[in-house]
C-alpha cells in the first residue's frame, strides 16, 4: 500500500518565523503535488515537482523533491497569517488513483 506521511501534523508559529513541513513515503513517485486548503474550500494546487533533487520557489515558499523521488519538503520563509491553512502533498499511483497525505495544519499568529 502506497502511503504519504506528513509531518508535523500541526504547527503553530508566530508571524515572521520560518518553518519546514515534510512529506515522506517508501514508494517512488513520478511526480508529487503540494496543495493548500482553507476551511470550507477545496485544495488549491501550489506546485508540482517532477525531477529528483528539484527545487522550486514560489515567492516565500520553497519546495524540494528528494533525490530518490520518495520524499518532499515545503519551506516557508517569514511566515504570514495569510499562510494559515492545511498543506497537503499528493501523488499519482501510476494508475488513475491519487493519494494524499493527512496534511500539516499550519497556524500563523500575528
Amino acid at each position, binding site marked *: 500500500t502506497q502511503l*504519504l506521511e*506528513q509531518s508535523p501534523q500541526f504547527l503553530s508559529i508566530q508571524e515572521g518565523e520560518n518553518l519546514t513541513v515534510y512529506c515522506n513515503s517508501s514508494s517512488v513517485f513520478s*511526480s508529487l*503535488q503540494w*496543495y493548500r486548503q482553507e476551511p*470550507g*474550500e*477545496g*485544495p*488549491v*494546487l501550489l506546485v*508540482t515537482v*517532477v525531477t529528483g533533487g528539484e527545487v522550486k520557489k514560489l515567492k516565500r515558499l520553497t519546495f524540494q523533491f528528494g533525490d530518490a523521488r520518495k520524499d518532499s519538503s515545503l519551506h516557508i520563509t517569514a511566515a504570514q497569517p495569510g499562510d494559515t491553512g492545511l498543506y*497537503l502533498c*499528493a*501523488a*499519482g499511483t501510476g*494508475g*488513475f*488513483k*491519487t*493519494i*494524499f*497525505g*493527512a*496534511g500539516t*495544519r499550519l497556524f500563523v499568529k500575528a
Partner: protein
Amino acid sequence: GAGVSQSPRYKVAKRGQDVALRCDPISGHVSLFWYQQALGQGPEFLTYFQNEAQLDKSGLPSDRFFAERPEGSVSTLKIQRTQQEDSAVYLCASSSPGIGSYNEQFFGPGTRLTVL
C-alpha cells in the same frame, strides 16, 4: 465562474436516506475525480472518470456509493441508505489532458454531508 462547482454545499440527511451530490467540472476537462475527506484528514480517492467512462472505482467504500458522468461533463455521486459514517466532505476535482499527466487537479469547494 470558470472553476469547479459543487452542489449542494451542505446536505443534512437522516440515516437511511438517499443523497445525490453534483459536480460541474471546468469546461473541457476530460478527467474527473471524486474524493471523501473526513474531518482532520486528507482527501481519500473514491473514483475517476475519463470523459463518460468510469475507469477506476476502487475507492468507493461500499455498493451504496455510485457515481456517474453520462455525457462526459457533469457528474453525480449518489449515496444510498446513508449511514453516520458517510458524514464527510465530498470533493470533486477535474483535470485537463495536458496537465493531467502530472496529476494536477482543480478542486471544487466540496459538499459537506452530515448524516443524523
